[in-house]
């Protein structure tokens, strides 16, 4: 009886810990590290006695809350996108950053915002979606990912080269368009400082749709882990699975880049931790990566405000600083 209870408890322990981490990060980011010297008591008062005249409560509701929500959802999206890519390609290094999906989206987003050619007419989300698509496609075409005997290392190296190319193009476009491009540089490093309620209302419907689509592919991804042939013989339509997964990944990444710029390496790191914590079942891994990603972005956002107040460090720089050593570790561990 005791043992049974213990096992049941430990099964709940990990998800509970994850959610607590996320929740703690969320609450802390609502009042922590603010120029307005907010206190936990302000947050408490907001909950029990909302007062629209109180400036501190207004700051929390109109600035802090959307930012924290967007941070969490973007983290969730990127974590899930990384998991989907790693699941589909069976490549532990697959992620929106390394496959140039992030930078492709950022590139077209920049072209769109400076009003370059026909891109200027498109809404932001469509442009980033197209950019993400182009980035990913280029990597697969030029990295030989479409051939039957594709080498995972080659795919990653191609991804990095295209990443560099697209980033350079983005920077060039920004500089030509505007000699005061410093704020755009900020955005290009992935920053959450510009988000508001409007971004939230832009973000959640598309994210929800993409996440539902992602959820529908979990069974296929589980079987895909056994190898493409096995999956096919078990009744999975691989091409249809690929299309759905790719669409979900592109949507998840594109919408995140539109709002916060490329926040790099979240999609690479998170699935590895999720797999270490939970069983290799995508139905569980998907929410787990999502929550881990949300917690990661939420905490790094908090951290990025804390390092040099009042200046804000773009979140993307912090995730890059965390992500690259992890990337090196993955490469050297040689699971390719």
């Amino acid at each position, binding site marked *: 009886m005791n043992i049974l209870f213990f096992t049941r408890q430990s099964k709940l322990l990990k998800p509970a810990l994850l959610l607590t981490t996320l929740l703690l990060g969320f609450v802390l980011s609502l009042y922590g590290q603010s120029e307005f010297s907010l206190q936990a008591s302000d947050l408490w008062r907001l909950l029990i006695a909302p007062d629209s005249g109180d400036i501190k409560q207004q700051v929390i509701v109109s600035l802090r809350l959307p930012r924290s929500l967007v941070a969490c959802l973007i983290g969730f999206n990127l974590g899930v996108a990384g998991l989907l890519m790693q699941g589909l390609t069976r490549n532990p290094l697959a992620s929106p950053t390394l496959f140039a999906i992030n930078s492709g989206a950022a590139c077209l987003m920049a072209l769109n915002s400076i009003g370059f050619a026909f891109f200027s007419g498109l809404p932001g989300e469509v442009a980033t979606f197209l950019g993400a698509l182009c980035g990913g496609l280029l990597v697969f075409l030029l990295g030989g990912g479409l051939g039957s005997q594709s080498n995972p290392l080659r795919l990653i*190296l*191609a991804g990095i080269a295209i990443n560099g190319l697209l980033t350079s193009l983005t920077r060039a476009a920004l500089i030509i368009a505007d000699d005061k491009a410093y704020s755009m540089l900020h955005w290009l*490093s992935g920053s959450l400082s510009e988000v508001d309620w409007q971004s939230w209302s832009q973000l959640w419907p598309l994210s929800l749709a993409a996440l539902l689509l992602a959820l529908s592919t979990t069974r296929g991804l589980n079987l895909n882990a056994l190898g493409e042939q096995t999956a096919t013989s078990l009744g999975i339509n691989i091409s249809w699975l690929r299309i759905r997964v790719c669409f979900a990944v592109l949507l998840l990444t594109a919408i995140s880049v539109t709002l916060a710029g490329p926040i790099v390496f979240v999609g690479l790191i998170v699935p590895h931790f999720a797999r270490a914590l939970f069983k290799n079942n995508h139905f569980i891994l998907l929410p787990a990566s999502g929550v881990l990603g949300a917690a990661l972005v939420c905490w790094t956002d908090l951290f990025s405000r804390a390092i040099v107040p009042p200046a804000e460090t773009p979140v993307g720089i912090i995730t890059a600083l965390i992500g690259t050593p992890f990337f090196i570790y993955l490469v050297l561990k040689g699971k390719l």
Partner: protein
Amino acid sequence: MTRHTQLLLSGFSLLILLALLSLIMGAEPLPIKTVLQTLIEGGEEDFIVNQYRLPRILIAILVGMGLAISGVLTQGIIRNPLASPDLMGVSAGAGLAACSLLLIWPDISHLWLPPVALLGGFSAALIIYLLNRWHNPSPARLALVGIAISAFLSSCINFLLVLHPIEVNSAMIWLTGSLWGRNWDHLWPLLPWLITLVPFSFYLAWSLDLFALGEETAGALGVNTQGLQTAALLSALALASVSVAVCGSIGFVGLLAPHLARLLVGSRHKLVLPCAALVGALLVLSADTLARNLAPPLELPAGLLTAILGAPYFLFLLHRYKGY
């Protein structure tokens, strides 16, 4: 006159032509007569020609040479076509060191830049070396590790630039490599290093040919392989770091120039080295000239243009490379 001498001579004259063109073109186009006159006896346009464009052109040539020679030496020793100082994290390390020096002590003499950058480049190389010792990864994997270390160091630079917001053009120098605002003050600290290192690399070139046959064969033929490896890698490191100290890491030149040179003159190092130096100088100079003239008076960083050229070439190399 052999074919190779002809090739080198024509490359050299091309470089001079390009330099002249670069003196003429810009936000303020000048007639060639004025330029030549100003070069010799000064005059009204002295500032534009002698103080602004000329040092910049000279720096572009020197830096291009430095990066290219560094690339030849690295590829020769590591025998990995994907190796180059900027893909091994050396450029980023040197850039980080130089950039932090300038951000912390903005008024420090430029003479300090090369040694400090050298220290940074050396530390980055040490990390790669240690990782290589511990894990002995395959060449392609090593390239990946080098790129990751570069990315890490670049994020550090990015981070520093957020902490100390500076003018966007100077920030671009450290983010992508640019010759914006470089003048005589930046040229002088560079010179002594290059004057010693370039002839030394030419001296090494004689033994590098034997090294290409494999370490054991080279040893049997009387090459001190250990010494050669150390000397070549150290001078490659120094050349790359010193170049980066002045104008940031202008990407892909160290990768591109040796390959192009080998396409032109085959694989004998005493031909490849001068040829690569010429190609490197041409690359950086033309990138900078183009960068200044695409949308005057705005300036693009030269490093962006070399990256736009270099990244596709890197993809081509990947396509051809078989040793994963």
